[in-house]
């Protein structure tokens, strides 16, 4: 890996678009914006951001890799790598002891067993079901009028988590409304949601034959209540990157560096 060159990773997810610029293995700039409905414009915006932060132009990049659901819409030259591989690579570089990665994104949850240096040994994706994805949290956030970034801190204050009788996001929405009407506290409802999600994620990870250490990344990693619930379900310590939504973009940049070298 060349320490003097710049490489970019672009993660075009369903909820947000992220770019990370690295020099060697070190992150020197990052940007994250909501995806909205325009992948190409979003990708251009985050790339402009990171290039401006680093004070370089696009021509200074030695390589770029795009990943995520919208990677096919990337307006930039460069190869595509799957988000599972990028997440694995990014998380491994941050946590070299990581052997299992959980990525909770806006559309799907993915779990992967990895081996050095962040290679996929086996992986599974959640089914076509919102309960296993960040979308579930968005739905509950809207109903409870609790901003997404406040869900985690509120959830861990719960003393009596609500037991959801369903593992379906659609039915959980109506059940949440019923529980609000019954007077349940938002903290207890959120803790119940986290428990339901953790059960779903736990099933996926157990099928994969989890090996510690376990890293939680993606948008779900920003929710400390969810991280705690998953840790309790799996009975392991969960490691969370400082910026879990950027790890796939970081991994993409690392792939770009590896490909180029």
């Amino acid at each position, binding site marked *: 890996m060349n320490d003097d060159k710049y490489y970019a990773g672009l993660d075009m997810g369903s909820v947000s678009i992220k770019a990370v610029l690295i020099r060697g293995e070190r992150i020197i700039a990052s940007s994250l914006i909501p995806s909205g409905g325009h992948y190409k414009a979003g990708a251009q915006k985050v790339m402009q951001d990171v290039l401006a932060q680093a004070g370089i132009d696009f021509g200074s990049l030695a390589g770029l890799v795009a990943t995520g*659901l919208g990677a096919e819409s990337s307006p930039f030259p460069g190869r595509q790598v*799957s988000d*599972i591989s990028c997440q694995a690579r990014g998380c491994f570089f941050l946590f070299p002891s990581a052997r299992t990665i959980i990525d909770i994104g806006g559309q799907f949850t993915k779990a992967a067993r990895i081996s050095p240096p962040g290679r*996929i040994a*086996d*992986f599974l*994706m959640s089914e*076509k079901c919102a309960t296993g994805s960040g979308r579930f949290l968005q739905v509950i956030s809207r109903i409870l009028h609790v901003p997404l970034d406040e869900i985690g801190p509120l959830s861990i204050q719960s003393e009596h988590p609500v037991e959801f009788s369903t593992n379906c996001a659609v039915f959980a929405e109506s059940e949440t409304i019923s529980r609000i009407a019954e007077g349940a506290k938002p903290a207890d409802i959120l803790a119940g949601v986290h428990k339901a999600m953790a059960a779903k994620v736990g099933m996926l990870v157990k099928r994969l034959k989890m090996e510690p250490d376990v890293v939680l990344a993606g948008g779900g990693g920003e929710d400390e209540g969810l991280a705690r619930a998953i840790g309790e379900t799996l009975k392991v310590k969960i490691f969370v990157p400082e910026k879990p939504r950027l790890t796939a973009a970081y991994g993409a940049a690392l792939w770009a560096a590896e490909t180029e070298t």
Partner: protein
Amino acid sequence: MESTQQAKTTAVKGTDTAREVRALVKNIYKSAHEAKANGKKVAYFMVASQYDEVIRAMDVIPLPTENYAGLCAAKRDMDRFLLKAEADGYSQVLCSYARIGLGFDSLRKELGRIPDNSPDGGMPAPDMMLGSSAVCDPRFKWYQAASRYLDVPTFGMDVVAPPPQDDLNEVRDYYIQYQRDQVQGLIDFLEAQTGKKLDKERLWECIRLGDKAWQLWYDIDRLRVAVPSPMPSQDHFSIMVAGHYYAGTQIAVDFYQKLYDEVKYKVDHKIGVIPDEKYRILYGGGLPPWHTLWIFNYFESFGAVFVIENVYRGFDPVEVPSHVKDPVDYLAWRAFLRYTAYHEKARARSGNPTVEKLLGMIEDYQIDGVVFHACRSCRATTIGQTHIKSELGKYCDLPMMQLVSDMVDLRDYSEAQWKAQIGAFIEALQARSGRR
């Protein structure tokens, strides 16, 4: 007029002979309509039920309802039948083949005619329905449920096999006798429905044709061990039509002879499915995604070819003892031997016949990775799939992936999810082979 829609669903085939299958499929339904017009008996039937040659020998025209469901999915014209069955109260977790069949029968009864623009002219109302317990329970119960829409007699034939841990020498006679009674029961039923006696010489002739066709089919699959692969799995999912829907006829024999010659030529001249075959994939199980067969070509765009598969296969050839002189006895023996072919290997190692079969394929076909298709509404091919994948992992170190959708119900399919999974799977193959 009901609305219909069509999107690209089919895969580009690897062999010329496979492209001729479409005509065979059309002929199935055309023959059924013609038979009805000419006063011949038509029967709904299930594939791999071990009774194909009996039906042919009795001059009953088989009408495969499972194939019709797959055809509807390939034409992306399944929703109206699925929704009709669900409106009639059938659960969305019931076999989607059965839901399409029941929905079609329900609509046909309601309209008093075949629903407009039905794929390949639709299915005429049968004179009888021949269920089977082979493979799964809906195949036995489906036609009983269809009696709600069709006032025709139903016969359900039980097809049995012992568990792998049984001592075959101890149980063989009991199973074969029971199977013989079941086949004889079917013959009695067909004789009553058609008003004619079974000609045993005719049955022997149909059996000879059936065995010959399946031997050729097996020989073709053995040719497929070649590198590069001469015939991919998407072709298999077409060419199986001859073996499963024309069993016991000269049509199947001629078809497989032609296919054999073509595949042999490709092997001899090292003509592969794609110019640069990088990875050889085993389709480990689960019914094929009839709604999205082009996905096999998507894999090929990364250099990955499905070289062999473990679903809708012909049975491996078996040797019925020479002392068996009666064709009904022969069918009972053959069914027993087919369903216990991997029991001995299973007892010696994993305990699971399917695992043994897959391990044999992995070795023979030089497999680089395994893909399973979990079908949400097919219990028979999906339950146990995760366990089989896990068991395989004990004996081989290959990338494996389970795609989830359904064999015909598009509502369970997500293209974005599949492409994301396939991308990661290809990267795992690349990493393993050092092709990164």
